[in-house]
């Protein structure tokens, strides 16, 4: 059973998680160790090896290989069109890679369906926010939680089982409100997501990903269009979450941000990894400067 539901169990009434525990088989023994112990730091959370993805004549990802340490904040940078988003797509099952493997916590997850990927605890956000436009912000956030009993049709319909569903919903809702507050969007809780501003959508997108209680988050330019002050706050939270054992892989173009917040940086260029290392190293790398940073740094 995944750590996250263990968490619910210990903090809440327990009934919900008891039954919920049976419904998913994806997470493996490996995650029985809750990341909260934080000593998984150093282990390899995500390993990408020789990933290739072609679109017609264009090879978007061309043999990219890299590893992400558990409990780290890793940056993935590279020029526009380097293949970062496509790499995310391949890792999370949106696209089928043409070659290469992806392993998460030691498990081969190459080419699995996106929903399975999320079941494993590997969740991503989209570069262009994909909110459920005609659902309210609240509904958007109620959606992602795992092990929702009410997602089984019969439980939602049968009166007895329904009571448990409602109980679980109440607990979930509590969590949703916490999240809303965390992202400071509780004032738009009952708005349709489609009416949010560009930046608000980004926040919703990240909030929603967190609601799945993932172990690793792939964030595709999460701060593009987010106001700097809010960005700062979110970064603080990311650090807190990291301290709790989450792993982050972040695509970002803001070099200051990368320098300041990532302990490890991977640079992609033309579909493969050009360089990696600690931020300082990477930014002084000649090739990186030439391909990405421009003369500036």
């Amino acid at each position, binding site marked *: 059973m995944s750590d996250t539901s263990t968490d619910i169990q210990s903090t809440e009434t327990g009934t919900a998680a008891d039954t919920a525990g049976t419904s998913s088989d994806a997470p493996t023994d490996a995650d029985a160790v809750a990341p909260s112990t934080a000593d998984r730091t150093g282990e390899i959370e995500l390993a990408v090896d020789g990933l290739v993805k072609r*679109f017609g004549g*264009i090879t978007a990802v061309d043999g990219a290989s890299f590893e992400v340490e558990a409990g780290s904040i890793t940056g993935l*940078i*590279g*020029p*526009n*069109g*380097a293949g*970062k*988003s496509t790499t995310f797509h391949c890792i999370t099952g949106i696209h089928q890679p043409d070659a290469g493997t992806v392993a998460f916590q030691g498990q081969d997850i190459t080419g699995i369906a996106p929903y399975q990927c999320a079941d494993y605890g590997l969740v991503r956000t989209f*570069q*262009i926010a994909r909110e459920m436009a005609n659902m309210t912000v609240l509904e958007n956030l109620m959606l992602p939680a795992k092990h929702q009993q009410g997602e089984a049709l019969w439980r939602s319909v049968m009166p007895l089982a329904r009571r448990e569903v409602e109980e679980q919903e109440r607990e979930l809702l509590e969590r949703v409100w916490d999240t809303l507050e965390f992202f400071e969007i509780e004032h*738009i809780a009952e708005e349709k997501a489609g*009416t*949010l*501003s*560009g*930046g*608000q959508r*980004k*926040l919703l997108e990240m909030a929603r990903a967190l609601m799945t209680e993932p172990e690793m988050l792939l964030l595709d*330019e999460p701060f*593009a*269009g*987010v*106001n*700097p*002050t*809010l*960005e*700062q706050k979110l970064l603080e939270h990311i650090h807190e979450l990291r301290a709790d054992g989450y792993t982050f892989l972040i695509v970002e*173009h*803001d*070099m200051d941000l990368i320098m300041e917040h990532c302990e490890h940086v991977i640079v992609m260029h033309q579909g493969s990894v050009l360089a990696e290392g600690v931020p300082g190293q990477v930014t002084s790398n000649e090739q990186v400067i030439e391909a*990405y*940073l*421009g*003369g*500036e*740094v």
Partner: protein
Amino acid sequence: MAMLDVAGLDAGYGDLQILSDVDLEVEQDEYVVIVGPNGAGKSTAMKSVFGLTTYMGGAVEFNGEDITGLSPDEIIHKGIGYVPQTENVFPSLTVQENLEMGAYILDEVPEAALQDVFDQFPILRDRRDQKAGSMSGGQQQMVAMGRALMLDPDLLLLDEPSAGLAPDLVDEMFDHVDAINDAGTAVLVVEQNAKEALRRCDRGYVLVQGGNRYVDTGDALLHDEEVRQQFLGG
């Protein structure tokens, strides 16, 4: 008399009012930046200039002429260009076709303008026959910019042009904007990359909750402690 003069503008979507009493001015050749928190109404303000929101009161004048109620193609004729924040390319058209669309109101595609755009964004020349929809996020942003430049407008509205661009391109983009501005086009830019934008601009607005809170020169805003804390991330 400012070239663009927005005075006491109220606007929104349907019944929902977003902007109340917004004042914006852009002088000939000026470089103006709007910053502000998410959801403050920055994009809405831009769209309002372009006639894309529900008009609720106030005035929008361009070169002394009231342009509220005009259709976008009429506004383009008057000399304003606009690059929206999201979904700003035609995905199933090629890059070149996207650019050509920018000059739709002309009878002929202005070859010189096209070459200028290609010169500014060389990658677009290489990818001229690729479907814009299959370009990366940053590449799409360039296509959108390029398209708005095709008509060589008097005033260019850019909604977060640097979002999603790689650092070198961010700088390049700012340089482009400078260049455009230097060449005699006034620009009005919404930016979250606020520090950089404020550094370069002539004047800045801080928009909060649908109304403008601060107006000043870019430098002044940059050095205003409150503004820094609240809107520029310290």
